[in-house]
């Protein structure tokens, strides 16, 4: 046996760069999200104190102005905010600075003969969002991959080159997709202006400065993007300029995130407005309007969602090329790309449900009724469909991991546990998607003796669901750890202790999750909600502590054999398509739910939707629309990838060895 090489580490994602970076990112995410999950109330109060001071200052200034202008000037009217409160819990007051929300009539809506306006707007919105999501995700990928490439340059130039080439290729696709996104954004804007002029006028009045900043940021994004892409080869000097180039990608991502957050503020304002009074009059503080209660959770949820979505698309692009590859080199390359894409995708997927929980918590905190409409009312069955889709994602991810693991030498030690993990996943998923209300015939109802089944009826509540999903995630994490160590022979002296710790952490977490799940049945609902926090903490502990111990044990480990890139099974490859398509559909579904929960409001409780389209679609109709949007966007993705490949072919003919041979096959 030989010592595990740096190449192995790089390939399996064990190089220092790839190890530390995701963990650092996670820690950053946790520090950012945790206050929202556990200490939200105090955070808001502190914020309220700040705004209270601002308000006092504004009052003072206005009084001075008033005094200076002399008498006879119209008095400034003060009104109460619909959302923000001062630290005593009274509604915050602000100077009325805008017109009240209009009562929209027939003349405020236009329509075409061929389709309802709402459907057209839905398609335009969804397509723009899909592309926007992809375009925001790819630079995150490129940043990470380029960074890893720079870090591995000294130890492994071939791998470094490979990483760099991959990042560049992805950017090329992103460039085409970028202009496409802008075009779709234009289509969306025109759809708003032409079909919903009354509504758009109101939004534009409130968000006027934000919209201009948004447009300018777009300009900045384009500039940085072009410098980043077209300066790639020029700045590839292997030294200072390369670092500058990598830093530009950080800037690109920052601007992209700001862009997304600005656009998010419009949607979150519509769902849970703040900074206006009951009549919809703007109260003078633009930050309040932007920073409404759902702004942060939606932003975090979307960033993670974008990463998973982007991973899925890049993965399926690579999977397609893998399946159609004509020679071993190509096959090896695309197998490796699949791996990188899936690595990032699964890392985004694991914390995604928690961000979702945070968002739902904030929705409930804003209006309990809105939460109930989502989880227990007319949207409840859409959430059941969501449960199915999330289950598919986890199945797809685990199937890919199992199949990838099987081609690593030394994995036989762990492959025998796969079937038990599958069993656990299926049992948990069965619990996860047992509905509370079941569709049944009278005869079936009679046999059961009531609307609830005496056994599986217990699974229809949140205690069971939380337990199930946390166990599913923990199981996926375990699978990931086993995958990481599949070709390693651990040689550190504390191997036994380390293994015991990992086992203890996982068993302890599982026991805690199950205990809290069962305990939840004996508590009233308001206390039961609190149990989800320690459950999630248990799961995250397995992720952080488990991964940390696992990676520490790889020091001086012996390799049991190389990964044979290009030998991924077909089932594992098809799992990537499943992931990507499910995720596209799921994104559409959750977007629809989030948007449709406003029911007959454009802006919740402020601006009423008086159009003929202010109805909620049936589940079937909504499903058809989602499927259409999914198919439509994938057709566009195929076109975009095809356009991007046009330039690649020329390069390929010039230099046949442009695709570097994977390090694994070089020895």
């Amino acid at each position, binding site marked *: 046996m030989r010592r595990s090489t740096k190449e192995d580490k790089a390939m399996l994602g064990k190089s220092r760069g790839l190890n530390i970076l995701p963990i650092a990112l996670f820690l950053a995410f946790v520090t950012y999200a945790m206050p929202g999950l556990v200490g939200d109330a105090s955070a808001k109060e502190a914020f309220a104190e700040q705004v209270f001071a601002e308000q006092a200052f504004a009052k003072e200034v206005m009084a001075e102005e008033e005094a200076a202008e002399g008498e006879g000037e119209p008095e400034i009217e003060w009104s109460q905010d619909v959302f923000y409160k001062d630290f005593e819990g009274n509604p915050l007051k602000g100077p009325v600075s805008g017109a009240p929300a209009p009562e929209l009539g027939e003349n405020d809506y236009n329509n075409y003969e061929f389709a309802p306006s709402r459907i057209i707007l839905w398609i335009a919105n969804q397509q723009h969002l899909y592309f926007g999501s992809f375009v925001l995700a790819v630079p995150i990928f490129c940043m990470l991959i380029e960074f890893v490439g720079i870090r591995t340059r000294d130890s492994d130039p071939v791998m470094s080159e490979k990483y760099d080439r991959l990042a560049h290729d992805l950017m090329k696709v992103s460039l085409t997709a970028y202009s496409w996104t802008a075009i779709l954004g234009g289509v969306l804007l025109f759809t708003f202006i032409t079909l919903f002029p009354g509504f758009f006028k109101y939004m534009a009045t409130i968000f006027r400065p934000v919209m201009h900043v948004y447009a300018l940021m777009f300009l900045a994004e384009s500039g940085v993007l072009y410098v980043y892409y077209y300066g790639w080869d020029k700045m590839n000097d292997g030294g200072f300029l390369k670092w500058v180039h990598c830093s530009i990608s950080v800037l690109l991502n920052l601007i992209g995130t700001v862009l997304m957050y600005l656009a998010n503020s419009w949607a979150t304002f519509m769902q849970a407005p703040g900074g206006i009074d009951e009549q919809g009059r703007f109260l003078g503080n633009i930050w309040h309007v932007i920073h409404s209660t759902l702004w942060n959770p939606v932003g975090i949820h979307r960033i993670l969602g974008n990463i998973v979505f982007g991973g899925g698309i890049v993965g399926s692009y690579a999977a397609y090329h893998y399946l159609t590859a004509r020679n071993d080199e190509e096959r090896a390359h695309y197998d490796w790309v699949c791996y990188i894409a899936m690595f990032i995708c699964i890392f985004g997927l694991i914390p995604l449900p928690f961000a979702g929980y945070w968002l739902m918590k904030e929705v409930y905190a804003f209006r309990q009724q809105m939460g109930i409409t989502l989880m227990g009312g007319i949207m409840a069955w859409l959430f059941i469909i969501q449960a199915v889709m999330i289950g598919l994602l986890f199945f797809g991810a685990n199937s890919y991991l199992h199949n990838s*693991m*099987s081609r690593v030498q030394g994995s036989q030690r762990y492959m025998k546990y796969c079937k038990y993990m599958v069993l656990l996943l299926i049992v948990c998923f069965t619990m996860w998607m047992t*509905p509370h209300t079941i*569709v049944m*015939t009278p005869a079936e*109802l009679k*046999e059961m003796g009531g609307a609830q089944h005496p056994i*599986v009826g217990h699974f229809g509540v949140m205690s069971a669901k939380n337990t199930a999903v946390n166990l599913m995630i923990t199981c996926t994490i375990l699978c990931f750890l086993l995958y990481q160590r599949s070709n390693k022979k651990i040689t550190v002296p504390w191997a036994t202790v380390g293994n015991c710790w990992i086992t203890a952490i996982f068993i302890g977490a599982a026991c805690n999750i199950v205990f809290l799940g069962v305990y939840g049945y004996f508590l009233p609902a308001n206390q039961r909600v609190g149990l989800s926090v320690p459950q999630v903490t248990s799961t995250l502990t397995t992720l952080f502590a488990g991964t940390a111990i696992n990676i520490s044990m790889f020091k001086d480990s012996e390799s049991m054999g190389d990964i044979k890139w290009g030998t991924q099974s077909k089932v594992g490859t098809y799992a990537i398509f499943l992931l990507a398509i499910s995720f596209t559909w799921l994104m559409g579904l959750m977007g629809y739910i989030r948007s449709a929960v406003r029911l007959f409001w454009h802006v919740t409780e402020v601006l009423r939707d008086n159009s003929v389209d202010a109805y909620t679609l049936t589940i079937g109709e909504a499903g058809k629309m989602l499927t259409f949007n999914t198919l439509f966007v994938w057709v566009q993705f195929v076109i975009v990838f095809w356009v991007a490949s046009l330039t690649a072919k020329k390069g390929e003919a010039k230099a046949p060895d442009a695709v570097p041979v994977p390090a694994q096959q070089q020895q």
Partner: protein
Amino acid sequence: MNKSFLSLILAVAGWAVFHFGLFPIFTPAEPGMLINRYVYFLLFCFYLIIVNVGMKLKPAMALRALYVWMLGFYFYDHILSPHVPWTLFITYMMLWTIGTFLYISQDPVTFREFRAPIVKTIIGEYKLARIVAFSVLPVLVGWATYQSIYPSFAEPVELRTVHPAPPASTKVHGKTYMLEKISNPFRIDEQDNYKDSFPFLDADKQEYMKFVTEGGTIFFQNCHYCHGDQLNGLGMFAHAFNPTPANFIDPGTIAMLQESFLFWRVSKGGPGLPNESTPWSSAMPPWEEHLTTDEIWKVILFEYWYTGWHPRTFDDESAVGE
């Protein structure tokens, strides 16, 4: 003999023995902690594992997948009791099928092993299997078609309301009571402060407990045969009725009802229920024919005292709102 074939024979024979021999033993009228259908299912799973592992039969992957899938089917179709509705059954089986597929496709080797006999059957390497499979398949399809188009007559959709809305007034023993206005004449303390005392010791000391004790006597003379001596709806006759008698311990019964509702319900029994309580109505007799008005009220008092529930009271705020 082919080991896979031996495994199949043992599995089928074992199932026959378990299903026809052991299953009736494990499903008595009152299942216990060990003697119940779920323990039976676990035992059958152990049997399959022990036979295959112990005898080192190593059945073919396709056969193993079949075992796994059939175990799921057997559980959801036969073991899980009462039956889950068809929609849920389909969902569960779909999940189980996905799980079976994940099991066989966890690595290329097992997947190839799984496919091998299927491919060999199709291309004709297994001649007999091909003849059997291709003869049985059309029959199965035909049978499924027949089943699906054969007209069936389901019960009309008429959901039973367990607690129907009571009428505005009811006439018991010649006197008309307005249900919204009446209350239990024996409920002395609204707050149930006596509920922790033991009636049979200090009944003579407290008037309230005297009524409760009287109510208890009436309950055990008339009601407990069906509603059970612990008021949990599991009396000795309970199993003969569909629907089963009400379980007063359950928070969904008397705890969410007003005393006047109980008064109406006890007085009029099953025959007095409105149409919405069909398709299958309560078997409870109209107790006004057997008990006096006071006795009915006392029984109601006892039921609340025993279970610790407090009757639902009229909501003053909503009354003002109206």
